[in-house]
């Protein structure tokens, strides 16, 4: 029974199926609203599902220069890591794995999909992919600094003078004391997190790694068919995971205790966050250069996060 529950958690909710569906929904909404912001009609909301299914039906070509195992394994590894990540993040009140989540673990689990993309792209032996992975890696270096500052600030706020990296503890603290976003010292951290999300997901203006117009989708250039579908799905799932992480870190106080209602609230929150930090920014900006992206994250965003860390440390 216990194992059945774990299996359910991994495969259906909040794992595989739920996170996949949420990812597709969020990216569908993102595309639709983006189109509307540009005064277009836009694709139907289920367009990402069509894309996914279509790619499954396409032939998968493994280039001669590629290392077959690595090339085909990379997307699946990324996908599995994302599913595990999703299962770790509490859905407001509902925690699939009681007390098991840990901020550092999350930090590293979140790098796996990016690394999978990098290794997969790299193994294809394409020079465009080479440039793409370089950019992907620099992007990763850019957002990792603010992200860890945010995590530490939250951990300090919740833990006080004890070590607290557990998401469950953070959720419990918020249910007792209200959402962390209401806390002045964590406002800069929340703002920084909102800016980290698009870079982590890789939406414009931070999609330098997959700039399809200049480096032909970078690491994905040689991918086709099902592996490409999985990579696209990974990107969509990251949308859900990052927004869910935001709500777990800063909006945990909204939990009502009724699981169904919590899930609904979570879905709405994720949609709202997607619209705020991905769609709107996408609609009003153009793609950055990679060196500017790095500078932006290590000055503005990291500055916000570090400010928050210092404020929390000073006891605000």
């Amino acid at each position, binding site marked *: 029974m216990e194992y059945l529950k774990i299996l359910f958690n991994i495969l259906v909710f909040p794992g595989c199926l739920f996170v996949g569906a949420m990812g597709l929904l969020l990216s569908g909404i993102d595309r639709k609203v983006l189109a*509307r*912001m540009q*005064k*277009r*009609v*836009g694709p139907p909301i289920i367009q990402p599902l069509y894309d996914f299914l279509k790619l499954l039906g396409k032939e998968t070509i493994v280039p001669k220069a590629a290392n077959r195992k690595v090339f085909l394994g990379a997307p699946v590894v990324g996908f599995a890591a994302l599913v595990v990540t999703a299962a770790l993040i509490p859905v407001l009140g509902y925690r699939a794995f009681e007390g098991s989540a840990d901020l550092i673990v999350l930090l590293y689990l979140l790098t796996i999909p990016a690394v999978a993309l990098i290794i997969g792209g790299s193994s294809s032996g394409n020079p465009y992919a080479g440039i793409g992975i370089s950019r992907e890696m620099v992007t990763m270096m850019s957002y990792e600094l603010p992200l860890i500052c945010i995590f530490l600030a939250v951990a300090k706020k919740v833990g006080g003078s004890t070590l607290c990296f557990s998401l469950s503890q953070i959720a419990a603290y918020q249910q007792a004391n209200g959402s962390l976003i209401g806390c002045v010292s964590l406002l800069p951290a929340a703002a920084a997190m909102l800016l980290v999300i698009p870079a982590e997901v890789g939406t414009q203006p931070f999609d330098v790694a997959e700039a399809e117009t200049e480096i032909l989708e970078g690491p994905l250039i040689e991918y086709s068919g099902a592996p490409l579908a999985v990579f696209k799905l990974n990107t969509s799932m990251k949308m859900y995971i990052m927004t869910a992480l935001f709500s777990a870190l800063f909006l945990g106080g909204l939990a009502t205790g009724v699981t169904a209602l919590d899930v609904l609230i979570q879905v709405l929150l994720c949609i709202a966050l997607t619209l705020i930090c991905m769609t*709107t920014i996408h*609609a*009003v900006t153009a793609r950055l250069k990679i060196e500017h992206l790095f500078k932006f994250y290590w000055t503005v965003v990291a500055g916000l996060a570090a400010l928050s860390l210092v404020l929390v440390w000073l006891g605000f």
Partner: protein
Amino acid sequence: MMFPFIKEAVANLFSRPSTENFPAQPVTAKPGYRGRINYDPEKCINCGMCIKVCSPAAITREFEDVEGGQKITYHFDLTSCTFCGTCQDFCEEKAVTLSDDYLMFAENKEDLIVSGTRIKEKVKGKLTCADGCIYCGLCARNCPENAITVDRASKSWSVDHDKCIQCGKCISKCPKKVLSFAEPAPEGVICGSDCVFCGLCAKKCPVGAITVDRATKSWSIDREKCVQCGLCIKSCPKKTLSMGPIE
């Protein structure tokens, strides 16, 4: 401001999209649009000017001899056309026009070829130049088949009837209106000036169509009766009777 478009983006969110609902609501092209070529073979005089002026050589024609004339087919290859409209401009008879139909796509390339056929009867006489020609050469210059040769120096005008396609372009271009397709005059027995009015022909005529009056020195023939057997020509002592065009 760092993000100049944010206001617009949010405003757009609440306004109607400016997208045309195209396949559902067909759109008419703006006036002056040059789309699919329409060819009216009935109007066409087969002058070939369109072929001559077409820069991508998109227009071709075929001839085929059939009973009662010639089958002329024009092909307008839309996959080769630049839609410049020159053929339309040059067509005297307005047989070629560019419509506003822009939906030109097909799975088979053949579907994108506009063709028209008509059968041209063999009617006209040969091109002739009457008196009054000033040897300006306009006819030669406008002849699509280069069948006409005009030499101003020697004041000569000639036509190669094998080349002539009888399009009539030269006739319309002629400033003195002296060119024409000469109708082939009906043939019949005619009497020349050497006639001595001997009456042998009248005697020989099997149908009695010829009347000779020595007194008034007149020779006449009833064309209705004549069967053009040629006996009179054979019998004429002065060899002045012949078959020839009747005036």
